């Protein structure tokens, strides 16, 4: 939160001359600036002669002089929009009101005014009375206030100081969301007050897609946010404000999977036993306005991987994992899987070996000089299907071969094939058992479950649906 700032609005100490006296030129100019020409013309047209009867504004002035707060509030409600607009442009009346009202009474008076009087004028009076956020919020939240009256505040200068004066960081974020306006205007006010990543994220969530700063953040906002946010948080904020990122997570967990292995590799007559294998789930998951993206940062070591090698693996992963399923909750959103080759800060490391290609696993692939994935005797590089299977492990999926009947049933929701159990257990037909097999809906569960735990307020639950 910023410290309270010095007023930019001058303190007014002199009362306006009596209503019957001709308006001073300076007062008329001031009225025209704040209430508009039409209101001032109307006021001047109504200006009474020395013998005229008391106007509603005169009555208001009298009530304020008498410090009759309740009566003055009622009289504010009795003024026409034109009269009220003119009254609010009168600094002498404002001074009287400041003396007659406390914070709450001033706020009630402003809320009592009929529609058609500018929000800025009302706020100006409230600020003169040392208003507070609760009162300001009640006023700007009034659904009858036209959007244009709220957004014009950004262009006036002094309202920002008012909001900085009455708001804390969270309140300013709430204020700019209520006021609406362009995202850059909202951010500038938040930066002026002081903010944090959670508040910037909250603003991003509240911002319609069409209002995102898709061309990038203006320089002053970049500088301002960098001062307010940490490095990672700043980067995320930029993604949210410019690209529509909604929320994200870094997943880093491990569990064990079980499948049958020979009790003794040198003696198959001893039969099989269940063996635990570790499965590590490490990836980044991003929920944006257009997709759910699972991103795995992979560091390749050992043999050199060329663009041709990487293309084989990227295409293999895309062919299996993209477009197999999407999520729906009334709107349709693709699930995108993306391997990202990085020199450091990797989720996983894969060591690349020279051919001949034998077996691969989640940490060991082959990269031969010809980048030939086969099939056939010329293969020197891990093929697309294998890359897709091993990618499944990198995102935390278990092997689906050599399973117990119970695990088979649990994974597939179907009974194992009829007949005696194969010596080494059951295999499913998915990519996690047979590399040529397909991705199944169950493989999407971790991601859609995460998504449903991170839905935005009011969002319906998502479900996995087959197809692109």
């Amino acid at each position, binding site marked *: 939160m910023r410290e309270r700032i010095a007023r930019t609005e001058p303190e007014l100490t002199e009362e306006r001359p009596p209503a019957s006296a001709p308006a001073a030129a300076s007062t008329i100019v001031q009225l025209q600036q704040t209430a508009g020409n039409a209101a001032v013309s109307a006021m001047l047209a109504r200006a009474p002669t020395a013998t005229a009867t008391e106007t509603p504004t005169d009555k208001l002035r009298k009530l304020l002089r008498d410090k009759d707060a309740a009566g003055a509030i009622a009289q504010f409600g009795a003024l026409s929009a034109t009269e009220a607009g003119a009254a609010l442009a009168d600094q002498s009346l404002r001074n009287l009101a400041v003396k007659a009202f406390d914070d709450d009474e001033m706020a009630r008076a402003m809320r009592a005014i009929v529609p058609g009087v500018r929000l800025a004028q009302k706020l100006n009076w409230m600020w003169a009375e040392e208003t507070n956020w609760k009162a300001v919020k009640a006023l700007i939240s009034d659904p009858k206030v036209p959007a244009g009256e709220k957004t014009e505040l950004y262009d006036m200068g002094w309202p920002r100081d008012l909001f900085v004066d009455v708001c804390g960081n969270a309140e300013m974020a709430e204020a700019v969301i209520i006021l609406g306006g362009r995202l850059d205007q909202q951010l500038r006010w938040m930066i002026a007050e002081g903010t944090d990543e959670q508040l910037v994220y909250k603003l991003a969530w509240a911002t319609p897609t069409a209002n995102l700063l898709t061309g990038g953040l203006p320089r002053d906002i970049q500088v301002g946010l960098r001062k307010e946010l940490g490095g990672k948080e700043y980067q995320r904020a930029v993604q949210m404000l410019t690209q529509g990122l909604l929320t994200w997570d870094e997943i880093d967990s491990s569990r064990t*999977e079980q*499948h049958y*292995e*020979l009790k*003794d*590799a*040198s*003696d*198959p*007559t001893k039969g099989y036993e269940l063996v635990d*294998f570790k499965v590590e789930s490490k990836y980044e998951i991003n929920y944006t306005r257009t997709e759910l993206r699972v991103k795995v940062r992979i560091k390749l070591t050992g043999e050199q991987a060329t663009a041709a090698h990487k293309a084989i693996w990227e295409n293999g992963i895309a062919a299996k994992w993209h477009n197999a399923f999407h999520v729906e909750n009334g709107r349709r959103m693709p699930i995108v899987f993306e391997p990202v080759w990085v020199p450091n800060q990797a989720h996983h490391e894969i*060591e690349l*070996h020279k051919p*001949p*290609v*034998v*077996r*691969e*696993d*989640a*940490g*060991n692939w082959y990269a031969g000089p010809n980048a030939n*994935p*086969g*099939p*056939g*005797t*010329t*293969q020197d590089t891990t*093929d697309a*299907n*294998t890359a897709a*299977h*091993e990618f499944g*492990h990198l995102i935390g999926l278990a*092997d689906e*071969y*050599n399973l117990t009947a119970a695990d088979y049933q649990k994974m597939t929701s179907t009974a194992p094939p009829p007949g005696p159990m*194969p*010596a*080494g257990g059951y*295999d499913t037909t998915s990519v996690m*058992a*047979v*590399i*040529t097999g397909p991705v199944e809906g169950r493989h999407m569960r971790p991601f859609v479950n995460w998504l449903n735990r991170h839905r935005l307020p009011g969002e319906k639950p998502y479900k996995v649906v087959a197809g692109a």
Partner: protein
Amino acid sequence: MSALLAAYGAAGGAPPATMESLRVLEDGTARAIVGSPWPDGAPLDEAGVYETTLAPGDLEALRALAQDQDLRAAAGEHGPIRGDSGARSISVGEELTIRWGAFADPPPAVKAAEARLRELLARVREHPVAVLRLRDGELSNPGSEPVTYRVELRTGDGDNLSAYHAATPVPAGPSHGELGPGETRRIALGQGLNAFARGALEVAVDDRPLALDVFVVSQSAVVTDPKTVG
């Protein structure tokens, strides 16, 4: 029964799993059980049980290997051992086992011992007992005991995993039955330079049935008209 002198095994990995084993007893009896040496080892067109008695020189060399201090010092597990790539093991007697993953880097003494044991394994495989062989468009049993089998047959080009996964199942579907010693059965294969048979054998080992997952690769698939095959 004589005590175990040394044993070697390579097993596991994503389907089709590797499975080859060798056990040598103190009296020189050596038995190999092979479901699939491939793709870790060279492609093999047969699987089953093999047995022989080692020559005295081989047996003495193996006894010396079993006493190798560097090898014995390597007892334990050398990781990582991952499901998709399987594991290897060497046992010396019943009390000492060395186990390592396909991409682990065990001490040199272990690698030397593995090479020696694999040489012996290849020689023992020259003595089939109950074996299913896929060669020249035929399934046969060159051993002295019967085998019961059920295999899916595919043909394709290449003898690596990607070739197997790209291979085409033969139109006639799975083949199954029993092959007695020396018996041969002609099978219908489709187009392709290589043939693959994957399934299960049932063989007798020490008078007990053993179900063995097998995977064999023939280097000489023969294109056969299914109508001419009985």
